[in-house]
């Protein structure tokens, strides 16, 4: 796939899962993480890497509707499951609109992970309070915005 080479010693295996609604199959070493597979193998770079060890939340995706760190999720754990990344969220979604209108995006590197986390929150709690938004996003770091406009955007999307 796209000429990504695996190490000389690696044994690869075919793994099937549903990615943003489409049946997908990749051949990767089973120890590959979902993040490595998304970014390096499939070149779906909407999901970002900020630390690769579960500290920053940039790689947040939903597996069977539950937010996980793609950098800590092995491909063998994804087999047969359904994965939603930022690319799978409707571009006209009110959350995206709110992020744009409220100015919640600066460098934007944290944004996809935060959009996914907020998308999940709104699916569980359609009208969250500010406290609930802060709590839901506590694992998603942003170095640019101070969170003010991010929180406002999620609240606004929740009102719609």
């Amino acid at each position, binding site marked *: 796939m796209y000429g990504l080479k695996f190490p000389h010693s690696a044994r690869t295996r075919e793994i099937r899962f549903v990615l943003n609604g489409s049946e997908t199959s990749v051949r990767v070493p089973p120890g590959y993480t979902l993040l490595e597979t998304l970014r390096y193998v499939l070149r779906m770079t909407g999901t970002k890497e900020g630390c690769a060890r579960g500290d920053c939340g940039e790689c947040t995706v939903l597996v069977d509707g539950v937010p996980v760190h793609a950098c800590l999720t092995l491909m063998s754990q994804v087999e047969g499951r359904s994965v939603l990344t*930022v690319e799978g969220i409707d571009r006209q979604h009110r959350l995206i609109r709110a992020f744009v209108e409220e100015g919640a995006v600066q460098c934007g590197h944290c*944004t996809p992970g935060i959009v996914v986390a907020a998308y999940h929150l709104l699916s569980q709690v359609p009208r969250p309070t500010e406290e609930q938004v802060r709590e839901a996003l506590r694992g998603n770091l942003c*170095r640019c915005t101070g969170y003010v406009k991010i929180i406002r955007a999620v609240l606004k999307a929740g009102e719609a």
Partner: protein
Amino acid sequence: MTAQRAVGAPVARRDAFEKAVGAAKYASDLFLDDMLWVAVLRSKYPHARIRRIDTSKAESHPNVVAVFTHRDVPVNRYGLFKKDRPVLCDDKVRYIGDPIALVAAETREDALEALKLIEVDYEPLPPVTDPIEAMRPDAPKVHDDGNICREVHLRLGDVDGAFARADVIVENTYRTGAQIHAYLETEAGISYMEDGKIVVVAGGQSPYRDRAEIAHALNLPEEMIRVVTPYVGGAFGGKDDITVQIHLALVTWKTGRPARLVWSREESMMAGTKRHPAIIKIRTAATRDGTILANKIEIVLDKGAYTALGPAVLDVAVENCNGPYRVQASQIDAYLVYTNNMVASAFRGFGAPQVIFAIERQMDLLAKKLGMDPLELRLKNALRKGDRYVFGNVLEGSVGIAQCLEVARSHPLWRSRGRNSCEWPWLRRGVGVAAAMKGYTIGALPDKGVVALELLRDGRVLVKGSFTEIGQGVIQAVAQIAADLLGVSVDDVEVVFADTEVTPDTSVTSASRQLFLAGNAVREAVEALRERVAELEGRLSGRRPARVEFSGGWVFIDSERRYSLQELARLLESTGLGRQVLGVYEVPRVEPLPGTLEIPHLFYMFGVTLAEVLVNLLTGEVTVSKVVSIVDAGRVINPITFTGQVEGAVAQGIGFALMEDAKIRDGYLLTRDLSTYLIPSSKDVPEIEVIPVETEEAEGPFGAKGIGEIGIISVAPAILNAVADATGVEPNAIPLTHERLYWLLKEHGLVEQLRRAST
């Protein structure tokens, strides 16, 4: 006249949508077929001589294409002020992030595997990690020419006389820590050959400057190198210096193949630059009524292993260490000292957050000694427009500090000061204030920005400049300025940025200056276009018009004739005059004070922060519950990006004050990830109120000032002043972690008191 519509309007950023849906490409998102994965071997020791490097085993590892050491680098020293940083270490390593070798392999895994096979024979040397110790003559030397990288000594006014006359003297020593930028996108890039040129696409702040550094190290003409800076996932000064660029160019130049190098988070923490840790001693002389007579100030900045932008940072520290006050005399002794710690360089505020922390804590301690209200003391001494500052320079630009302080004084948060008790006896509330200043645009150094403006055939406008989009929204602001000057809608302005092949040199994106420079250059470009229209009209009608106005997508000539911009584009092309003009803006220069690089500046930014904290006396935990940031912003170009910049700066200031504790022991960084080096999360940053005080900066584009840095500068002192207000203890070092405050409270018997009260 042109109706101004876009400037000042809260227009959504043009890059927001593609970023939010994950479509925007950053350097770390780029993959090329057949590319090599590059990994860097870094020093094991903070200080050691390199006796031998053996790469043979690594070279024979499967899938490894090449291994590079210093022997492969044509000119093995780079750096913006002093070429003292090795591309790959040769004689010595001077800090733990120092690069020794590069592996380029067909796979990521094999590149990392091969790093372990490189044998380096080190002779460990004693490290020097305390800047004060490093200043001693017998200290281990980081560089052969000694550990003092730069020193500045200024004697301004009659300091001794002032101290002799003083009613009160206050003296304290302040310390600030090694803040890490911790942008979410680490240092990243790719490289490839195209048309005989090396192309480097990397996260950076100044493509032309990066290009010059690459060309120097590879000993190639600059024209052979193209640098492109796509969207950058945060920079804050940390990508001002070279990171991945030279390594990438070297690999591609030697192998002819595309390459990718992205630093891991750990690498970014170790090899990325830091905010200079500072030790600042201030002795203040004042009269009984609160007039500051003089400050004697000693500044020591820990440079870490290499010069980088340190000399300029030292100058900013010197320039602002007296704060925004009418100080009549000052003695300043400042030292920039090499150690075997990680390299310090540019970080939002650039030396000002350190010295303003010190002087603003000092102001509160002086107020306490005088029994004065700390805000009144500041207001009494605040600079006004037309004042002579301590360097003898008359402040001709706008000076909004007094207005900012007045807004703070009447703010409900300040008026609620004094209500210290909370519902629980172990919780105390406090409110603190602090002021800030910083010169912006590069003062005494020559500074010039160029942009190109092209009228497209369809009548839309294309602005090209080498400014970089590091998250600050410069592209949006440039588009808004161009739209208004040309009387078109913002959507009809396209902006191409940061590509040495396509965009002219708009100088560097740092020091809160990019918008100021680029905005003024756009204004010049529109003038040039006007001139060209006049020339066109001269040719067509044989008479030069007196007036050329752009409005509503038309150009009006002497109110006799008009062309649509589309027609104008066609005419400019068919007459051979050309559809593109250049705008050049040169920042007015100030003669530097002898012995300094760029003191004073012509323009200063000002601001005031109010902070409310809750302190838990049992644990030392400080919760920041509200921040008000009052900014002398000049004219605000876009209220959304403006408040966004300030809010982000405040959050970084909260981290600097309370949380961001880079633990460094004997030159080794112990906090190498984001679970041990904590930056503020959504639970740590409170409500932030941003109040712009719009004083017009006559020289700025539409009266705008630089605003990127001012928001951070007075946050830490405001928070610590609030902690002092809450508890009565006077902490003078940051970061003030729970643990440090707990011990301070205990020392002052507060913990005991509480215990007794509760039994």
